[in-house]
Structures are given as C-alpha cells and as structure tokens.
C-alpha cells in the first residue's frame, strides 16, 4: 500500500476490480493535481507553430521584395536612375519617367500632413489634458473610428461633398486672396491635388492623434507638476511639461501618418484627377505612385510598361518601409520611458 499512497502509476499484475477501484481512489487523493515533467509535446508543437507564423511574415516580405525586384528589372535596365527624374510617361513610345508620380505622392502627402498635424495634436491635447472626463471616452473612440472607415467610403464622400464644396466656395476664395502665391490658380475644378491632400489629411488625423495621445500619456505626472510649480499656465504646462517631453514620439506619429498618406490609393485615385503632370498650383490635377499602379496595371500590355509600373511599386514599397521603421523607432524612444528615466 505504501507505493499506492505515493500515487505510483503502475500497479503490477492483474488485480481484482474491487482492489483497482480502491487504488484509483487513493491515487486520486494523493497524486499531485499537476503532473511534474508531464507531456512536453503540446508545448513544443505550440512553440514551433508560433515560430512558423513569425517566420512566414518575414518570408512574405522577402517574397514581395524578390518579386518586385525581378519584375522591375527590365525597366531598371532600360532607364536606370533616369526613371525617377524624367517626367514623360508615354506608353505609346515605351518611354517611362516616374517623376510626376513621385511629385504627386510627395506633394499630396506633405499637404495632408500640413493640414492634419495641427488638428491631430490639438485633438490629442484636448482629449488627454483638457477634456471633461465623461467626454474623453466617446471622443477618443470616435477619433479611432475615423481610422476604421474604408478608404473607398472616404473617396465617395470626397466626390459628393468635398469636391463640390471646394469648387463652389473654397477654391474661388483661395484664388482671390491667395492666388498671388501661385499655389492657388487656374480653373477651380474641385478635383485635383488640393482635394487629395484634404482627404488624406482626414485619413491621417486619427493615426497622428492616437500616437500623440499615447506618448503624451507616457509622460510622467511629475513633469507636469514640475512645470506647474514654477508658475506655468495650463498651456505652458502642456507645452513645456508634456509636448516637449513627448516630441520624439509625436514626430514618430507624424511620420507614421506620412507612411499612411504615401501608400493610400483608393481615396486619392478618386479625387486627384489622375494626370501625370507637374503643376505648381494645387488646383491642378496630379497623379500618385499608388494611383498609377492601381489604374494602369490591368491595361499594361507591353513588358516594359508592366516592368515600369512594378518599379514604381518597388520605390513606393521601399519608401513606406523606411518611413514606418523610422516612425516606430521614434515612438518607441518615448514610450519605453526616456522621460520617465529622468525621474528615477
């Protein structure tokens, strides 16, 4: 009976049923509930599966790069670096220069940031520092919700609401008072670079503002108190005690927003006008890298044409990857506790 009491799993030899029942009872009472050194297999399978999941992400990225590089080879050999500084995009004569798309992508994205960043930081400051408590949750939720709206919906909204508004009211006003800058001249179509910039701005606001909110919350309370105790007003406290400490992370959020704006396709394609031209005026139509790929890929017949489109895609891919890495790094530099360390 001694080894029964220890809960030994083996009972040697055949035994009467009665006896077995007794054994089961005693071992159930005395055996540890969790078996030491039990089966390791589920654990191993689990780790291997997870590792595979992790690796598959890397594999997908690698495959995309390989595919883009091989497919764009033809165009790269034909045009070299000229591809990015020439502005004629002429499928008829098989001449491809991507400059108008690069220009359109950069201008629409920068315009989006110029419009979105002050608004996004304002929203973040209001939600974290000034908003009455009952409004905090709903407001934060609504801002996040903006990020969840499919971009084609933004595009539709822009066509039916934003573009007419620009055409009827905003552009005539801009042309009248700011036309001398050269940025707002030409016929007010509504559709064009300005519309693309505005719609991108609306899409970028939730990204920048939620990032800003996150890094602002990471700034320790003692920093706010330090500024207040020096006799700062509320605004000075926010500027010196919060925004200044969070600035690297805010910059990260802005760059993350830039990444989003650079790659956005659908909404932009619907309102930018899709003409490969470089114009100073923001009223003029333009074209972006993402839009040209989406629009022309299905009708690209020649090998060089196809290859040129893939090269545009490769360039866009690399730029967005770099931008995102930079953004993550900056955000991380704040949230891992750089400002907090100063207090410890």
């Amino acid at each position, binding site marked *: 009976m001694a080894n029964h009491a220890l809960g030994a799993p083996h009972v040697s030899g055949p035994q009467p049923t009665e006896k077995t029942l007794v054994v089961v009872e005693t071992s159930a009472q005395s055996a540890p509930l969790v078996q030491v050194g039990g089966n390791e297999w589920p654990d191993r399978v689990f780790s291997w599966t997870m590792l595979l999941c992790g690796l598959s992400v890397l594999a997908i990225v690698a495959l995309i790069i390989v595919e883009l590089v091989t497919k764009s080879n033809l165009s790269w050999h034909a045009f070299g670096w000229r591809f990015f500084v020439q502005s004629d995009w002429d499928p008829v004569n098989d001449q491809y220069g991507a400059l108008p798309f690069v220009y359109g992508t950069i201008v629409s994205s920068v315009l989006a940031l110029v419009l979105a960043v002050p608004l996004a930081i304002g929203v973040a400051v209001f939600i974290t520092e000034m908003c009455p408590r009952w409004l905090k949750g709903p407001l934060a939720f609504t801002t996040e919700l903006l990020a969840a709206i499919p971009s084609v919906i933004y595009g539709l909204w822009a066509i039916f609401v934003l573009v007419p508004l620009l055409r009827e009211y905003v552009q005539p006003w801009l042309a009248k008072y700011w036309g001398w800058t050269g940025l707002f001249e030409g016929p007010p179509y509504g559709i064009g670079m300005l519309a693309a910039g505005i719609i991108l701005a609306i899409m970028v606001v939730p990204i920048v503002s939620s990032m800003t909110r996150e890094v602002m919350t990471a700034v320790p309370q003692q920093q706010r108190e*330090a500024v207040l105790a020096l*006799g700062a007003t509320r605004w000075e406290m926010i500027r010196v005690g919060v925004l200044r400490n969070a600035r690297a992370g805010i910059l990260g959020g802005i760059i993350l927003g830039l990444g989003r704006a650079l790659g956005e396709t659908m909404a932009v394609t619907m309102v930018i006008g899709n003409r490969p031209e470089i114009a100073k005026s923001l009223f003029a139509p333009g074209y972006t890298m993402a839009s040209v790929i989406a629009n022309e890929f299905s009708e690209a017949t020649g090998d060089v044409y196809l290859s040129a489109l893939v090269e545009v895609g490769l360039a866009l891919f690399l730029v967005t990857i770099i931008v995102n890495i930079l953004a993550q790094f900056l955000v991380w530099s704040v949230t891992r506790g750089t400002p907090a360390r100063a207090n410890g």
Partner: protein
Amino acid sequence: MGVGIKVEHLNAWFGKTQALHDINIAIASNHCTAVIGPSGCGKSTFVRCLNRMHETIPDAKAAGKVEIGEMDVYNGTSAVSIRRRIGMVFQKPNPFPTMSIYDNVASGLKLNGFRDRKRTDEIVERSLKYAALWEEVKDTMHKKSGAGLSGGQQQRLCIARALAVEPQVLLMDEPCSALDPISTGKIEELIFQLKEKFTIVIVTHNMQQASRVAEFTGFFLLGKLIEFDKTEKIFTTPSDKRTEDYITGRFG
C-alpha cells in the same frame, strides 16, 4: 528675503474625503520649519495647499486663509502668480529631461517672459551656486541634459531651478527620501545656508533630519496639526501625548 506664512482654518479635501482639518499655524520668515508625521497624515497635502498645487489634482479642493507675506493665497491672487513666488521641490527629482542643465535652471525665468541673456547667465550661475551644484556642472551645463546627472545632483538641480525665480518661500516635500546619505547630507547643509535668504518648509519622515535642519516642527496626525513648537521642545518635552508616542517610535 523670505516672508512669514500665516495659515488659518485651512481645510482640504480629495473628492469627499477630508485630508486636512482646520489647520492653524504661523511659520516664521527666514527659518526652516519641518512638517513631520506618519505616512498619509496630510503632510504633502498641507504644503501643496500653500502654493495651491493641491487644486491641480482632479476633484481636490481647499478652503481657508493662507497669507504668505502680503499675499492672500486663496483670495484675490491667481494660482499662477502664487506659484511663481513660491518654489517647490518634490520627493522624486524631476528635472526636464529634454533640456540642458542650464535650460532647466532658466526654465522658470523663461516662463515668466524673462529674455535678457546676460542676466539669465548670472541668475543661472547664482542659482547653481545656491544649490551647491555650480562646481560640478559649470563646464557641461550647456551640453548635458538634466537627466544625465545622478539622483542627488538632479535634486540639487531642481532646487536651483526653484530658486532661480527668487521665490520668497521654498517648499520641500521629502526632498531626500530618494537620495543616498551623502547627497542627503549635502542637501541638509544647503538648507542651512538657504535659510538666510528664504523661508523654508520641509516635509520629512525622518525625525533626525527634522531636528538637524529645522528651528520649528509641526506634528501632523490624521489630517490634524497636533502640535507645533520649537523643534527642541517637540523632540524633548512635547506637550501632547500623541506627539510623544510618535517621537519615541510607539507608532507611525
């Protein structure tokens, strides 16, 4: 020069819980006054009521009369202008990590709209000397961040920052509790010299520290000021039984 502080019928709340009950005290100018008592008895709340930092906490409020020199703290003066004339040093050193040492010290001046570079240089130097930090940082103060200093140096930097705006009163809430004994010694020495120019109120849970640096000591218990007297008297022949129990370590 420091000024005296007169507190009458001061009450303070966090939401519905009352943290201070009818505090009356007169703090002498150009002396150091210690505030002692067990943890949670309202020491921090008391000093934070003196410069109206208490009300920056959501739902916290205070009522009563506090006079600092000529200034009526809770009547007719804005919280911002009160805080500009009262320096405060916190338990955890909190220099601004994104600013150089120099900018940390000058930050109060900048907030006040002070722009004169040459005067700022002088004031920064003087404040760092007051805080006994000048010799250690004078060569690096423009390049090095406030966060790059040791804990004790950071706390002295915070003292310099508070002193730069020439406050009339310096409030210190357990300024040494995060520091090692050597840094603590330096700060205590500093308090001795600062008394000549400022009125100092120091919260401490360390009774030896109170007896070393303060001429007067107030003993708080459960949000009430139990006894306030010369430090010597408090630590040798207190008149209240509860003070005696605390001093002799029978509770707290």
